């Protein structure tokens, strides 16, 4: 039954991705398309379950499968009419690992080892972490036993949290037909794997295989993400959805700068759909998604003269896709959450000051100093991120020309604004206590980690690619296009 649990979102996602990409699917690698399909399918399944639940329909296997089948049918009819599908037979036949050097194989083996570790460590033991018990997994049991997440008893566990972690775990139990809380964590390691596949594919568009694999290896080493990928918490889903959405947003900007407008439009569609789904993962994403929207808006404003009408159509389409995915949660879910998050962000409704905040830290100067100290210690001296933030600093100091030029400066803006948003969030109210007691900061900082690593890769790699072609994004793009086979 675990195959059913994974296969349903994957197949649904393959259809959704095919509809989304249309004839542009060839621009994406096989692994990337599988990863994207799974992520899109999981998000779509969540939205379907949400709508069913909101209409009071019992969430059992047959009801869910009927609705999935209906949607699949609509998509199939559309795809048959358009004569398109994201995977093709020649593509499947052409899959090969030819041309891999020994170093490539070694890196691939290390990445595979991490994936196997994460999968087995997640699935071998039952739920053991406290937030999973008291929030996500108990609601999943509610979906399994009572066929609903809207029961008043379950609302106390959901609160104003977005529903993807609850409903995907609920789907797992429904699909399994048992309350096996070892297998309930199946999606976290799979999303971790998707993140690695997409990160590799994003780099592979512009750089040779070995450095792309090396940075993907680095992407799989963050101890904190690896640990979270084995739990039933919401932090890996939010990191993966938001991280990959931002990666595609950056690729969109990069292709715009390179002048590949058609390609850029497709990438923006993918980014918009992932960002829309990320709204369903965790409350904190509302701020981060807002940052992405603002940054891309600034990018478009600055580059408006160079953008063609066709691209504007893609932008409008992406806006619609974003609303399509995020809309049900924003409209039928907790619209008030957005208001709370925004007002909380600007301090208009400060929460109660926690008991642990000593009077001394209430003075603004001391508080700022304390926040800065904790920020720097957490980013640089803990084991969570290895040497990522040192690499970010080195990228800024030594490769500032590349970092502060288009399009990378927009990715930098996203990373900085993401971190600043934490700064603002932790500045007041209840969350300040969480900063002091160390329960939340690392988990929120995790959201920015994929983006920060991409920033480093984009800043550093062109300088390491030999030859005159290596030093500009445009050039490296040409290099990769000429060397794409066997990726």
């Amino acid at each position, binding site marked *: 039954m675990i195959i059913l649990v994974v296969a349903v979102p994957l197949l649904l996602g393959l259809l959704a991705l095919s509809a989304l990409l249309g004839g542009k699917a060839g621009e994406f690698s096989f692994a990337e398309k599988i990863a994207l399909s799974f992520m899109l399918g999981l998000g779509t399944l969540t939205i379907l379950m949400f709508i069913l639940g909101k209409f009071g329909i019992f969430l059992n296997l047959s009801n869910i499968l009927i609705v999935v089948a209906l949607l699949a049918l609509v998509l199939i009819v559309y795809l048959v009419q358009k004569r398109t599908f994201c995977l093709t037979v020649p593509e499947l036949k052409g899959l090969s690992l030819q041309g891999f050097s020994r170093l490539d194989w070694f890196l691939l083996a290390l990445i595979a080892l991490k994936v196997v*570790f994460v999968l087995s460590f997640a699935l*071998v033991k039952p739920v053991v972490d406290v937030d999973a018990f008291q929030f996500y997994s108990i609601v999943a049991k509610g979906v399994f036993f009572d066929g609903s997440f809207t029961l008043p008893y379950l609302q106390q566990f959901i609160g104003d949290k977005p529903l993807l972690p609850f409903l995907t775990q609920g789907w797992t139990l429904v699909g399994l037909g048992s309350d096996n809380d070892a297998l309930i964590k199946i999606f976290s390691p799979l999303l971790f794997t998707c993140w690695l596949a997409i990160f590799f594919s994003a780099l592979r568009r512009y750089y040779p295989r070995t450095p792309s694999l090396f940075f993907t290896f680095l992407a799989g080493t963050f101890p904190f993400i690896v640990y979270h990928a084995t739990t039933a918490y919401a932090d890996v889903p939010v990191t993966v959805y938001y991280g990959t959405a931002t990666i595609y947003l950056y690729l969109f900007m990069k292709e715009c700068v390179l002048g590949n407008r058609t390609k850029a439009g497709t990438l923006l569609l993918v980014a918009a759909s992932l960002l829309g789904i990320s709204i369903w993962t965790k409350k904190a994403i509302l701020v981060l998604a807002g940052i992405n929207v603002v940054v891309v808006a600034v990018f478009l404003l600055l580059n408006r003269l160079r953008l063609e009408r066709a691209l504007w159509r893609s932008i409008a389409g992406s806006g619609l896709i974003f609303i399509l995915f995020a809309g049900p949660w924003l409209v039928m879910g907790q619209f008030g959450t957005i208001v709370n998050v925004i007002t909380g962000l600007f301090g208009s409704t400060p929460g109660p000051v926690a008991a642990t905040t000593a009077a001394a830290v209430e003075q603004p100067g001391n508080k700022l100093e304390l926040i800065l100290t904790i920020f720097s210690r957490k980013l640089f001296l803990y084991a969570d991120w290895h040497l990522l933030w040192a690499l970010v600093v*080195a990228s800024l100091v030594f490769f500032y020309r590349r970092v502060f030029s288009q399009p990378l400066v927009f990715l930098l803006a996203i990373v900085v604004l993401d971190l600043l948003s934490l700064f603002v969030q932790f500045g007041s109210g209840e969350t300040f206590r969480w900063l002091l007691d160390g329960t939340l900061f690392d988990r929120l900082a995790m959201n920015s980690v994929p983006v920060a690593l991409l920033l480093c890769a984009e800043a550093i790699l062109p300088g390491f690619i030999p030859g005159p072609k290596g030093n500009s994004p445009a050039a490296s793009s040409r290099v990769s296009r000429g060397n794409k086979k066997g990726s």
Partner: protein
Amino acid sequence: MRKYAIFLIGLLVASSAALALDQINIQFAPQPNTPYFVGQPEFNIDAEEFNTVILKIKSTKSGTARLFWATNFDPQMNQPKSIWFFVDRSNDFKEYSFNLRSQNGYWAGYVGQLLVYPENGPEGIEVGPSQAVVGNLGTNISSGWREFWGPSGRLVIGSTINTMASVNLFGRPITVYLYWLIVLAGLGYGGYLTNKWLAKKTKEPFASLWPQIGQGVVLTILFGWCLLEASNTFNLWQIVQQDARFVGKQIEEKRVLANTGDFYNFILFCQKNIPARARFDQRIPPIYNDIKAIYYLYPRKLSTTEAEYLVVYDQQPEANILRKYSPWQTFRPGALILKRGKS
């Protein structure tokens, strides 16, 4: 006052005697009905001078242990004044060197007593005659090695879900040393490139050296990153060892293993006796078992006002609650289900 003065004089005499020695012997002995060994030094240890403790431990099992100490500043044994270390399985007494002054800032003042607490129980463990010594290069290397590969920052504990401490070396996160390495490598490489640039007859702009230095720095960072990942692989191996106990077990057996004591067996007992859709209240001590009970007992729902059943696990219910319920099913003394109404 007089007692205090005598104590101080005694302390001074003992300390001066200790200063004349190379080492202070510590005799450890198990305490009746307690899971730890108490160590009594022959003199109070001047922590400033005798910065290193060498324990001799023989153990039939591997596991973790804590070394606590009591000082004249704080005579209680408590976690801040402790270090955490791995105990290896060994047939003979094995030496464990700890430069406590570098590992823990609370190794200060005069230390009058030590305590070794094996976390997997004292059975099969002997702590032999040990010493407090003035550390030398050998003991420092041995201490650093043991600290680096110790459980702190490596084993999964409750707080791992929120943050992961770095492994330490001489009381500092290992990343601090790597940052020093990166800075020195950057300076060294920068100096080398500048020297080469100065020697050239036709010079490219000096600014063009900057990205080259950056490449050197980046390579050093990536080297450090790979070292950290190699060290992290050892942590993952610890996790694999920890979780090997779950392999091949049914889900109920896994839950029994994942919980402490007989808690999950008690939950199974409750699941068997309380109807599936019933409401229950609970008296289960926090932290976490109370939350776990709500999770495990679902679809039975927690209610603090209308519960038909009261689940009690090692916590005495209040008198007014006991007036509403009477004992119904007993799992063991202290762990039972009460039912609303008088029997």
